[in-house]
């Protein structure tokens, strides 16, 4: 299964991935509209790593675990794994109890502003390649199989 892998040595911390993640979650895929019209939560998180003399960054999003804790903690059945192995959240069913946030070891599920649901990476499963990967200016995140990613690490 292809997942998004982040390469810290390439990450600029520009956070464009967050911008494009929010855009991907908006119907028209228009960056301006996605940000002006609606408060959308990004499902990718850029974190800082403070070194002795420098700051580096990495992007992180759902790892689509083999045996996801979030699914078993979900009280509403909103969280599920589809036949491709992608862990998805059905916002219609989600009640925003945040049990998934309580158990996600990567801390990559986020509460939406409405408080009634959560956002998480679904690898842009409904339309082609993940938007964040396509729009990373420095190829710091890539959509790869595990083997390919291991070879590059």
């Amino acid at each position, binding site marked *: 299964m292809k997942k998004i892998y982040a390469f810290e040595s*390439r990450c600029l911390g*520009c956070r464009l991935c967050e911008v494009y993640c929010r*855009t991907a979650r908006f119907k028209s895929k228009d960056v301006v509209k996605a*940000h002006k019209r609606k408060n959308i939560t990004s499902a990718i998180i850029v974190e800082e790593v403070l070194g002795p003399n420098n700051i580096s960054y990495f992007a992180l999003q759902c790892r689509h675990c083999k045996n996801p804790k979030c699914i078993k903690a979900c009280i509403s059945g909103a969280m599920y794994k589809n036949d491709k192995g992608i862990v998805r959240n059905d916002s219609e069913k989600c009640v925003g109890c945040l049990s998934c946030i309580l158990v996600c070891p990567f801390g990559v599920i986020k509460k939406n502003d409405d408080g009634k649901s959560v956002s998480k990476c679904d690898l842009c499963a409904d339309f082609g390649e993940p938007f964040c990967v396509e*729009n990373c200016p*420095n*190829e*710091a995140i890539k959509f790869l199989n595990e083997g390919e990613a291991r070879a590059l690490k």
Partner: protein
Amino acid sequence: MSLDFNTPDFEVIRNGNRCIQCKVCVHQCANAVHFYDEEYDVVCVDDSKCVNCHRCVTLCPTKALVIRKYPLEFRENFNWHGKAIKEIYKQSQTGGVLLSSMGNPEPFPIYWDKMLLNASQVTNPSIDPLREPMETKVVIGRKPERLKFDANGKLLTKMPLNIELKVPVMFSAMSYGSISRNAHESLARAAEELGIFYNTGEGGLSKDFYKYGKNTIVQVASGRFGVHKEYLNAGAAIEIKIGQGAKPGIGGHLPGKKVGEDVSATRMIPVGSDAISPAPHHDIYSIEDLRQLIFSLKEATGYKKPVFVKIAAVHNSAAIASGVVRAGADAIVVDGFRGGTGAAPTRVRNNVGIPIELALAAIDQRLREEGIRNYCSLIVAGSIRNSSDVVKAIALGADAVYIGSAAVIALGCHMCHSCSTGKCNWGIATQYPELVKRLNPDIMYKRLVNLISAWNNEIQELLGGMGINAIESLRGNRLMLRGVDLNEKELEVLGIKYAGE
């Protein structure tokens, strides 16, 4: 001093309808032009720090930014124009020498644009490079006077040391220090893939890069930074740098703050110490001295590496070049007055040296007259901007060209002329790790490969149009050039006829 006459050079305009406050500009501007005001929860701008490098404009996901010349005008005065006044403000405030980066931007004539190429019509056929073989390979180094063959047609002449370029374009000397490690890696990998050469500059060579050795030219300059036997043997050829087009007659200065662990190791100087290249080589005061250095280097490398000598294009270039050839150089590199630099005194950069087109024509002419043109190759540098500049240079007498500015532009340089600040937002002329990171060699080497491949295609088109199927046949063929908007003296120096003649 609280009284500051300086005014911003640029104005950053943010389109509020498009800005989504994503702060990408804030994260990307190393000059802190864009900043986030927590109190008002809004992204703001400080125009005075903007160098117009376009990093923010390029990365802004909504194209909400525009940078314009700052609209503040001085009273119109052809002589005391704004730039002249602002330079005085700066110097009267700091007492310092004005520093600039990249090449001479002043409105001196660009002779490439005053020369036009020929094409075949009726009396001689043009060649379609898509259908017929077309050679753009060149060989750099000394050429034999004549070739001898035995009765069976076997070559008897012992061929001198040569290196071969698949395209007559190489990447100019830019030191590791002046440009980043990632920029170097991009140049090295592109040179390897293209079958051409890149040049270490005078900063030595990291051991990690020895693997690109067969596509590397190692430079020996007045500071002798990073020069040792292993280094000399690591490349395919050695270049002695006497002068640089952007700053003929003066040395170089890499500030200590750019000398980190890695730069320190390759330059063989302590971390944090200034790397000062003297104006002259202290062991070269004559052509004879130069000959000694050339042969010392050949000796050190077992006569297996061609030695280039690089000079800046100055008033007596032709005579100097003659001396350099006689000193035993395998190639002479001439760098014109528009050549780029990481940092040079503004007055020097803008007022010293001569145009490369005129120097090239004069040198080629002189060497031919003296019957020594085949003793060495002639490589020119100093603002070759495109493939037609390459073709014109070769028609004027060059064997190949070096590109520096064009190469860094392919890497993302937006010609903001601020290399000397060390805060290149594109990760080229900087040593800050977080900025260097912005230049991903995996992406950028491909852009260099694309550029040179595109030029190669264009060169073949132009050659084909002239009915020539090998670039070697164009070299020094000045009949393929005609001048426009040139006076008789210029035509004479260039050795070309006026259009219509």
